[in-house]
C-alpha cells in the first residue's frame, strides 16, 4: 500500500528522512536507503535542509524511486521562482515522485552560501495553491498542461515556544489545509507529555498528523537545541540522561526509539530525522519495535 492510501486508511506510517550528499558520491545515500527498504513507507528527501547546499531533493528522490522506495520531497520558494517550482514538480512527477511537503526553508542569511540572493517568489500558502492549480491541469499563467500531475501534499507545523505562538501556528496550518495540504508534519518532539496535547489539537484539524522524531547525537547537540529553539521543549532532564549514560550514542538511539514507540498509539505516523546518522535508523526502528 502506498503512502497516499495508508494516510487515507488511517494506518500508521513510518517516514525516514535522508539527506543528500554535498557532492556526487551517492553510495552512502543509496546504501542507507536500501537498508530501510521495506521497513519504512517512504523516504523524505529534504531540499538543502538547514541551509546547506546539497544535491537536489529531486535527484535524491529519483534515486529512491530507482531503488523501489517511495519518496517525499520538500518544496519551498527560497531558491526557485514560480516557473522553476512548477517545472521541477512536473519533473518530479514524471520521475515517479508522488509526495510533497511544503516547508518554509531557512532564510538566506542563515544558509551556508552567505552571499546568495533569495528568490522568495512564492510563500508556502502560494505554493500549495500552485500545486492545486497544477493538479487541475493548469499552470500559474493559466496555460493548460499536457498531462496532469497528482501529488499527496503535506505541510508543516513549527515548534512553538508558547501558547500564543502555537495558536497562531495552528491557525496557519488550518489555512494550509484549506489551500490543499493533506497531512501535517510537525517539528521534532522531545518532550512527550507536552507534545501530546499539542498533537491532539493538531489532529483535530482533520488531516493526518505526523510528528518528527529527531535522532539526537550528543549532549552538545541536545544542549544547542534546548538553548536555541525554545519551542523544542527539550528538557534538562533529557540532556542529563544522555550525559550520564555509559554509552551516549546508544542512549540517543534509545531516546528516539522511546519517542517513536510512544507515538505509535497517538499519531498517524512518525518521521525520523537523523541528520547524518541515517545508518543508525534501522537500529532506532529495531529498538522501537517497528
Amino acid at each position: 500500500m502506498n503512502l497516499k492510501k495508508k494516510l487515507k486508511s488511517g494506518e500508521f506510517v513510518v517516514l525516514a528522512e535522508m539527506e543528500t550528499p554535498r557532492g556526487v558520491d551517492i553510495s552512502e545515500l543509496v546504501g542507507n536507503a536500501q537498508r530501510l527498504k521495506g521497513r519504512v513507507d517512504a523516504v523524505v528527501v529534504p531540499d538543502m535542509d538547514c541551509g546547506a547546499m546539497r544535491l537536489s531533493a529531486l535527484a535524491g528522490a529519483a534515486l529512491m524511486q530507482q531503488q523501489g522506495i517511495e519518496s517525499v520531497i520538500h518544496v519551498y520558494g527560497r531558491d526557485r521562482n514560480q516557473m522553476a517550482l512548477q517545472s521541477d514538480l512536473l519533473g518530479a512527477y514524471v520521475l515517479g515522485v508522488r509526495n510533497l511537503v511544503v516547508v518554509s526553508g531557512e532564510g538566506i542569511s542563515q544558509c551556508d552560501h552567505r552571499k546568495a540572493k533569495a528568490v522568495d517568489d512564492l510563500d508556502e500558502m502560494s505554493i500549495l495553491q500552485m500545486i492545486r492549480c497544477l493538479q487541475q491541469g493548469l499552470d500559474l499563467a493559466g496555460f493548460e498542461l499536457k498531462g496532469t500531475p497528482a501529488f499527496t501534499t503535506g505541510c508543516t507545523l513549527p515548534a512553538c515556544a508558547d501558547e500564543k505562538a502555537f495558536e497562531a501556528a495552528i491557525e496557519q496550518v488550518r489555512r494550509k489545509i484549506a489551500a490543499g495540504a493533506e497531512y501535517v508534519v510537525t517539528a521534532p518532539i522531545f518532550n512527550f507529555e507536552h507534545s501530546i496535547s499539542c498533537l491532539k489539537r493538531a489532529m483535530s484539524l482533520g488531516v493526518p498528523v505526523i510528528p518528527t522524531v529527531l535522532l539526537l547525537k550528543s549532549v552538545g547537540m541536545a544542549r544547542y537545541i534546548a538553548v536555541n529553539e525554545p519551542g523544542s521543549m527539550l528538557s534538562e532532564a533529557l540532556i542529563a540522561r544522555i550525559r550520564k549514560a555509559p554509552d551516549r550514542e546508544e542512549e540517543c538511539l534509545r531516546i528516539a526509539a522511546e519517542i517513536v514507540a510512544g507515538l505509535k498509539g497517538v499519531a498517524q505516523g512518525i518521521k525520523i530525522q537523523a541528520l547524518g546518522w541515517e545508518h543508525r535508523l534501522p537500529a532506532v526502528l529495531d529498538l522501537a519495535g517497528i
Partner: protein
Amino acid sequence: MITAERKPIQEIMNLVSPYKNLLLVGCNECVTVCSAGGRKEVALLSSALQVAFMKSGRIVHIQEMTLERQCDPEYIEQLVPHIDSVDAVLSLACGCGVQEIARRFKEKMVFPGVNTKFMGASERPGVWAERCQGCGDCLLGVTGGICPIARCSKRLQNGPCGGSSKGKCEIGPDVDCAWQLIWDRLKALGLQERYETLLPAKNWRNGRGGGPRKIVREDLM
C-alpha cells in the same frame, strides 16, 4: 528620489470605506517631486474622494495635511493635535512614511494612498525611471556610472546578454540596454579595459539577502 504613483480611486475608497473621518496626509519630499503625494495631490484626492463618496450617498469628512517629511518622527509629531478627531489616516507618502505613522499612532489604522515604485530620476517632465535598487554594494565606480543591477533587465553584472540589439533590450524597444550604455560610456571615457574585467558574483547579503537592513551611526546617536 523614491517614486510613487497614486492608487486608483476605487481601491482607495474600498480601503477607507468603513471610516467617516479621515486624515489625509501628504509628504513634501520625494512624492511631491514625482507629483504623487504632495500638497497639491492631497487637495485633489480629498475633493475626488468626497465627490465619489457623496455620489454613493455617503458623507466623509477629510482633514488635509502635508508634512515636511513623513519618514521622520520629528515631523510625524505634527499630527498629534489632529489624530484623535479622525477614525483613520490615509497617507500619500511612500511606504516609509505610512509605516512611520503606523508606528507612532498604534491605535489608528493607516492606509497607503500610493504605490511606492522605485528609486529613480526624472528623465524629462512626467517621466521617471529606475536608477537604483539599493543593493548595498555600489558598482557605479566600475560600470561608468550606469547601474546594471537597476537598469539591466536581467541584473547582469557581466553583460550584455544575447538580447541586446541596436542599443535596446529584448524586453521592449523603449528599454535601453544598460550594458550598451555602460560600454558606450566607458569607451567615451577611454576606459574600455574596465569592461574586460569580470565582476565576481555579487554579495547579495549587503542587500535584502541579509534580512531587513539598518544603518547605525554611533557618531550621530
